[in-house]
């Protein structure tokens, strides 16, 4: 079976004491998809992952892989494998035996075992590391061994619980590239848990944004960033300027709005946004969608720079406009923007489709 419902989670709930860690979650993951569960700590993403892996059983709902119900199967009887957050490298075994651990229970003969271990060591670029002990490995090497140990089982679904969280930034970025290439090459379904939105955007085919045990939105990275379905998603993924705007009219899928910040403006109405003349919506604009200039232009709004943060590749401005503070970022292209100072008057403008309209919370 392929397509959307290779891994199917139906209406799953899990309670710990009085807290509802996972609240009636349903999702469908396709074969070969890189799917991420993204959310702040305590949002239930790891609990959901552990239920898919069989380390915890749901109070309600069911989980199926390739149409077969696995809800009540122990981990050793599921076609899933997990890369643990702590990596869980067996400290009493060397790299070779760690990676080969899962082949013994399958009854793979010694010769084939060794060949497969060798192959996978090459895959993760740790050839010649077979004799090393867990203590002799660096963080990045442990992460690879944990990955190899799971992949050698040829799982239908690989579960990854914040596998890059313990690595420093540079190494993490390098591992992200490797992980994505590996997944594209092996075409195994990955379910990846992370709280790092940049990581999720970079790696995933689709992302489920979670909060308090519920899924807020499931979408591909671009949709998630460009068209978040709620203020929470908008503010969790990247930075977003959000302010209220009153609907003054609707015409051909566009809404006409008025707000103290942007003045009169038009923005496209997307499905799911409940707008009628006289109602108040939220208008959201990413910092980089603004263009910033000293020169006045038609329909630009006037503001004053309250703070400037120099971030190397870009400058981030705090601009006071219409009684609100907006975050505006501008790529470091040199030129006029570089000469801006706190207190300078500036004009902000943006394209109509840069404005995302959201329902009020």
């Amino acid at each position: 079976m392929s397509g959307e419902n290779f891994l199917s989670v139906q209406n799953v709930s899990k309670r710990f004491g009085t807290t509802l860690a996972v609240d009636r979650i349903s999702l469908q993951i396709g074969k070969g998809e890189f799917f991420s569960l993204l959310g702040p700590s305590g949002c239930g993403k790891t609990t959901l992952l552990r239920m898919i892996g069989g380390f915890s059983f749901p109070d309600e709902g069911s989980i199926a892989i390739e149409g077969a119900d696995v809800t009540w199967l122990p981990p050793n009887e599921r076609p899933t494998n997990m890369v643990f957050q702590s990596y869980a490298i067996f400290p009493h075994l060397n790299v070779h035996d760690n990676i080969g651990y899962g082949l013994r229970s399958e009854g793979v003969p010694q010769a084939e075992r060794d060949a497969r271990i060798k192959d996978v060591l090459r895959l993760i670029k740790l050839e010649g590391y077979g004799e090393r002990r867990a203590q002799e490995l660096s963080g990045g090497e442990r992460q690879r061994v944990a990955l190899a140990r799971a992949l050698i089982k040829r799982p239908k679904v690989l579960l990854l619980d914040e596998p890059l969280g313990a690595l420093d930034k540079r190494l993490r970025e390098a591992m992200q590239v490797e992980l994505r290439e590996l997944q594209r090459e092996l075409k195994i379904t990955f379910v990846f848990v992370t709280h790092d939105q940049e990581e999720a955007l970079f790696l995933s085919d689709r992302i489920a944004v979670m909060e308090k045990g519920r899924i807020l939105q499931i979408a591909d990275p671009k949709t998630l960033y460009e068209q978040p379905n709620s203020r929470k998603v908008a503010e969790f993924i990247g930075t977003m300027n959000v302010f209220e705007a009153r609907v003054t009219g609707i015409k051909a899928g566009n809404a006409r709005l008025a707000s103290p910040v942007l003045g009169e403006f038009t923005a496209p109405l997307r499905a799911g946004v409940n707008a009628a003349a006289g109602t108040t919506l939220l208008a959201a604009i990413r910092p980089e969608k603004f263009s910033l200039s000293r020169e006045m232009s038609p329909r630009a709004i006037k503001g004053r720079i309250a703070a400037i943060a120099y971030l190397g590749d870009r400058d981030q401005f705090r601009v006071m406009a219409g009684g609100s503070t907006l975050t505006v970022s501008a790529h470091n292209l040199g030129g006029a923007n570089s000469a801006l100072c706190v207190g300078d008057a500036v004009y902000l403008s943006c394209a109509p489709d840069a404005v995302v309209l959201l329902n009020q919370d």
Partner: protein
Amino acid sequence: MKRAEPFDEGVRGLRVYAFLYLAFLYIPVLLLPLFSFNNSLFIAFPLTGFTTRWYAEMAADSEMHAALLNTLKVGTLASLSSTILGLLAAKALARGGLKGASAFIGLTSLPLFIPEIVLGISLLVLVTAMGIGLSLLSVAIGHLLVCLPFAIAVLLSRLEGFDASLEEASRDLGENGWMTFWRVTFPLVLPGIVSSLLLTFIVSFDDFMIAFFLCGTDTTLPVYIFGELRFPNKLPGVLALGSTILLVSGGLVFVAEWVRHAGVRLKPHRIIGR
């Protein structure tokens, strides 16, 4: 003049103290082997001459051998049973989420705080009332009671650094609960198991009070030695026996420490980037 570092003052005094402390600890113990080679019935200075006679006497004493064998039997039974039960208890306690875990630990270690003579008498009453009868088995059961808290304490400290995801990883990689125990838990807890076996064996080996009340006609070594003390001519033989025990238990402690250090560290390492 070079001034002492802020916290170094008085180090000399502490060295003297440490030396005196060690002397206090070991001189009485070292007298045992010294007199066991002394060619006199009386335990007094000056030494009169060197002999290995007492060792030869000890080697020929069949009653002593029987008592030693009894002690070994009881010790083996008590250390094995307390370590197995202790491992099960420690595993449950270390997993956490157990209601009343600390109360349970407190209750299991309570026998340590009951005077042994009280424990011995109450066990005697119980064993008689239950009709088990006085034998090496009743001694072993009594020893299990005092050994279990030691076993739990040793094993619990070993299991506390145990990363639960190691067992989960094993399950994830296809092993069932039993095989996970054999392939992951057991090898990692092994140093703790060895420590527990040695410690509980020594606790059992050492015990006089409980054995005295419960052993009936099958005397253990401490009970036998106590009996022998009434006969002055047996005393040097007891010293020889004591010295031998000292040597063997010293060896055991050495082995235990070696196993402990050879064991794999369980605490997760700080993860560093390459």
